[in-house]
């Protein structure tokens, strides 16, 4: 409760910004990819976007992102199309009002720290498929969860937990993702 309007223009502008930046960059920027990109921006790159993630079927998820996406679509910030790819799903593209929403959020989006983080987000993870984003965001989520529970985050322990949660990913895939995230400084694991 407040006497401020509290309209989350920053969150709406961020969705429009990601749709613009990932248009042509992401193989399929759909609803799952949006969740994972916002998670990576918030948790791996340290930009507080105001979301609170929990682990769901395809990794970290916050229903409020979908709620915001609905409104952003309604006001024309993005367009959502059903994908024609064999896997189905959706594709989020910039809408006619994308720039209007980005303008409303310019104080946030043009902050130097946020700009750099968005640049890195798109560079590191923009070209990945939703499945790869799911694995990387799940690895980070599980590692954070282990740390918060007071458990030691060892490479083997993390690998076992992710494998247990996501049997669809091979041992090698998970190992590679852990290696990649720790080499890039997004993850601290003990050998």
């Amino acid at each position: 409760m407040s006497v401020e309007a509290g309209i989350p223009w920053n969150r709406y502008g961020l969705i429009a910004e990601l749709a613009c930046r990932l248009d042509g960059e992401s193989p399929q920027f759909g609803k799952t990819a949006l969740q994972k990109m916002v998670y990576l921006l918030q948790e791996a790159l340290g930009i507080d976007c105001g979301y609170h993630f929990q682990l769901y079927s395809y990794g970290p998820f916050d229903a409020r992102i979908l709620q915001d996406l609905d409104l952003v679509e309604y006001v024309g910030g993005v367009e959502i199309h059903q994908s024609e790819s064999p896997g189905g799903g959706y594709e989020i593209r910039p809408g006619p009002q994308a720039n209007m929403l980005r303008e409303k959020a310019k104080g946030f989006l043009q902050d130097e720290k946020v700009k750099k983080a968005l640049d890195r987000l798109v560079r590191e993870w923009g070209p990945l498929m939703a499945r790869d984003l799911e694995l990387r965001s799940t690895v980070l989520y599980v590692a954070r969860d282990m740390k918060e529970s007071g458990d030691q985050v060892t490479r083997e322990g993390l690998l076992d937990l992710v494998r247990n949660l996501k049997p669809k990913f091979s041992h090698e895939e998970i190992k590679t993702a852990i290696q990649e995230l720790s080499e890039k400084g997004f993850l601290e694991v003990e050998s």
Partner: protein
Amino acid sequence: MAEIKDCKEQPPIQKRYEIRDPIHGFVVLNEWEREIIDHPAFQRLRRIRQLGLTEMVYPGATHTRFEHSLGVMHVATRMFDEVVEKREDFLKTELGYQEADLKRDRVLVRLAALLHDIGHAPLSHAAESLMPCNGAGKKYLHTDYSAAVVNHVMRDVIENHPMNRQYAITARDVADFLTGATRLGRSLLWRGLVSSQLDADRADYLLRDSHHIGVAYGKYDLDRLLVTMAVAIDATGSPVLAVEEGGEHAAEGLIIARYMMFTQVYFQHTRRAYDCHSEQALKTLLSRGARSTQGRAAFPPPTARKNVEAYLEWDDWRVMGMIHAGEAGEHGEIIRERKHHRCVYATPEIPSTSDLEFVEELIARVEDKVSFVDRAEESWYKFGDADIPVLLSPGRRDERVRTLSERSAVVRGLKAVNKIRIYVPPAAQERVSAVVQKLRRVRG
């Protein structure tokens, strides 16, 4: 509580108890669960109303989290049993479950469902904004309090009952199930029975709230939903709880029931005003009670036993007693006298940019008169990760999983509500309403 004879599933020395329930008929308990229910932390739920001050608008809404918690355990168990009975071979051959795993997970599901609201704040969800932040700046949720109560206060009654010898379930297992902690591994599959779009929580509260309030908006076909619940492997290779093709309209029914209950009951404008008054009254009480975190009135964080015990002292009886004694300030008086603040402007359920700008402009003009701005936000269907899997051709060679949103135009059409309302004291209603009219004319 009526004691009844043993059933064949339980060892002969175990007793079962039945509690009569207005929604489900009888809720059946064993001795272990009865001891948990008899624990003071669980009995506190008798003193937490399910819907806070909703009774100010719907006088029948006086039911409590106690009966709801029993109902959630009952429904979650029925869901679990249906899935296992129908898909036992699949669980064993495809997902590697043993008989003992299934028995243990069934107990874990029952305990987690029973205790899912054990950490609920007084006056229902209105108090959640007064939960403090953790070290990372994230606000604690009532689930965190439920997990903390389980871990710090209910450990003995969970872990040391003789019935637990064969399961070795720890308080941490139950707490992790509630928060979705990843160390639970495969057992997390069942978490969807307590936390998902088709979970036992909403399956129970929609029917229970409708019954007590006297509306039909929350009714749907629970029995059909139950007999069509299943487990499957989705297109990405993940094990998921699903609904069979024959139950997809029952699933739609639940989604629509929830949409109707929110728009017609939970988001009703006077009910929302009382959420705001409750929050402010509680804030006054918390600041008086020397419980202040990070410089503002807040509940103690759920980080230590003494904090959890102090938190559990707060229930509706205590709060209403303090309001009655005149200790809850201006908003306490408003509640006592039912003289709530009035809504002078509301956006449509799905506001346009122009509606949002109108809110900002109006507040800028009458800020000194506005008592609170309420944001009623909810999405009715969660796509992507939380989409409901639908199992097609179960048990046949062409068995496959699709999502409900792919198959249902109804759920695809349900857009999230983001309604904003502006409230003022009754004395300012006329004046601010005039400003609203004038601003409407100016903006065309």
